[in-house]
Structure formats: structure tokens, C-alpha cells
């Protein structure tokens, strides 16, 4: 069991997982998002190989309307 902090909210997952797997879990596969893991950008090319650990902090962002 691991706990992740995603966009400020704590969520539990049954086992460690890659960012690609996390995006699947969150229904975000194929969506245009950018990810920051513990303050560092994780490039899209590395999503499959970066494995998340307990207490990791993630920011998952999209583009929205703004001025």
C-alpha cells in the first residue's frame, strides 16, 4: 500500500506504480497533461519508467482558459 499526494489530495494505491499506470488509474491516458514529481518535471518520455514511491507529491496540470 502506498500513499500519493496528487494535486494536494492524498490517495491510496495498492502497490507501487509507474506514472503511465497512475494516469491509467486516473482515467487520464491520452490526455494532454504535464506532471511534476516532488517539484521536478517528469518528461512524457519518462512516464513509463518513473516509479512512484510512498509519500510522493505529484502535480498534474492541463491548459485551461485564462487571460
Amino acid at each position, binding site marked *: 500500500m502506498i500513499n500519493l499526494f496528487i494535486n494536494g489530495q492524498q490517495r491510496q494505491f495498492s502497490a507501487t506504480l509507474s506514472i503511465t499506470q497512475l494516469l491509467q488509474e486516473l482515467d*487520464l491516458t491520452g*490526455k494532454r*497533461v*504535464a506532471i511534476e514529481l516532488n517539484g521536478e*518535471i517528469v518528461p*512524457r518520455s519518462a512516464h513509463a519508467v518513473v516509479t512512484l514511491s510512498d509519500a510522493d507529491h505529484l502535480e498534474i496540470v*492541463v491548459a485551461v*482558459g*485564462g487571460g
Partner: protein
Amino acid sequence: MDSISIAGRTFNSRLLVGTGKYKDFQETRAAIDASGAQIVTVAIRRTNIGQDPNQPSLLDALPSKQFTYLPNTAGCYTAEDAIRTLRLARELLDGHDLVKLEVLGDPQSLYPNVVETLRAAEVLVKDGFKVMVYTSDDPIIAKQLEDIGCVAVMPLASLIGSGMGILNPWNLQIIIDRLKVPVIVDAGVGTASDAAIAMELGCDAVLMNTAIAQAHNPVLMASAMKKAVEAGREAFLAGRVPKKIYQASPSSPTSGLIGS
């Protein structure tokens, strides 16, 4: 063609528009089409986890083939938050480096915090970003931002979303006269004449969001703004007559009058 060059990229439209505060993406698209804008600002926000994954996205409504995105740092109050936001934007938009930096001072006035803005600009320029920077109408700060390497300096006309128009044309004029990079009035435009005045002063372009999006008819206002920016630009290039206080000058011949 009277085009504008920003960071080596050429644009025919001198009107830049925001994508916030519209009813829906359909209205956003219709208004932006009517404005003729080629550069559109977008905000970067946390994704709403658990929302319907089939919801349309802003980037689908405004495809990158037709528009140049200008990701912003709206809502950031520190240099660090602004830098983080734009690094996320660069990743999100596949290495896109043209960005709008704004670091705000407080949520009531949304007035720029120029100290934090200068700090963020230094870091971002060194990191390879092409920074278009929102700032106050202080000519000294504007020059410092140019010296740091910002590709465009964007002083406010008045407070963001206030629609109060150009409050200090004299400061804007000093900035326009002193800077070599494009000067773009950003924030405070309320109606078409405000945009025309900015362009008549010699601004290179105008950036607006609320004036269009919150107008009673956004599409019609977008069209008005397009014309105002073009009219103001042409008037600037044409060179206006000097103002002559208390001195009239007839437009018709003074000789050949009947009965003379």
C-alpha cells in the same frame, strides 16, 4: 504587410487575446475567430481528477496549427510559483518556449509585483524561455525587463479586468520611446477606443481578455477590437496632425469665395 515580430516569429495580427471568462469553448472560438488574433493566452491549472475524461479541452477548441499559445502564470504571487508553472507549461506544450510571465502583488488589485517579476524573468530567460512580461507602467522597470532579455514588455493600461482604459498615456509613451522590444498594452482595456488609443500611442500590440469575453456580445466586441487595433495602428503609421491649442485652420480654400 504591417506584421509584428516577437522573438523572431512573425504575426499579422496585433491583437492578442485571452481565453478565460467565456460561456463555453464554442463562444471562445467564435470570439477569437472574430478578433483575428493569432496569439492566445492559456492558463495552467491542476487537472480535475475524477471528471468526465471525454470532456472537451481548450487546446482542442484552439488547435496549435492555427494559434500560437501563450501560457501564462496568472494567479502566481511568487517568482518560484511562476517559474514552476511555466516549466510545466513547456512540458505540457511539447517544448513551447514563448510564455507570458505575470507575478501578482495582491488578489484585490492584481497589481504586478515587479520585484518578483524581475527575479522570475532573470531565471526564465537563462532557462531558455522567450518571456513576454506583464508589468506596471513604470518606465524604469520596463527597461530593466528588456535588459534582462524579455522578448516583449507588456505594461498595464489599468487594473486587470477593470475596463478603465489607459490611465497613464504619458508613462506608456515613455516606455514606447525607450524600449526596442515590442511594447504590448496588457490589461485594463474596456472598449474599442481604449485599444485604438494604445495603438495610436505607438504600442506594438494590445492584449485583452475581459473586454471581449465579458461584453454583452463577445463576438461583436471581438470584431470591434480587431478594427480598433487596425485603425489605431494605421493612424499611428499615418502620423497624426499636431494638436494646435486655440488655433483653427480652415480645410476649404480661403480665396474664391462668392461676393469677394
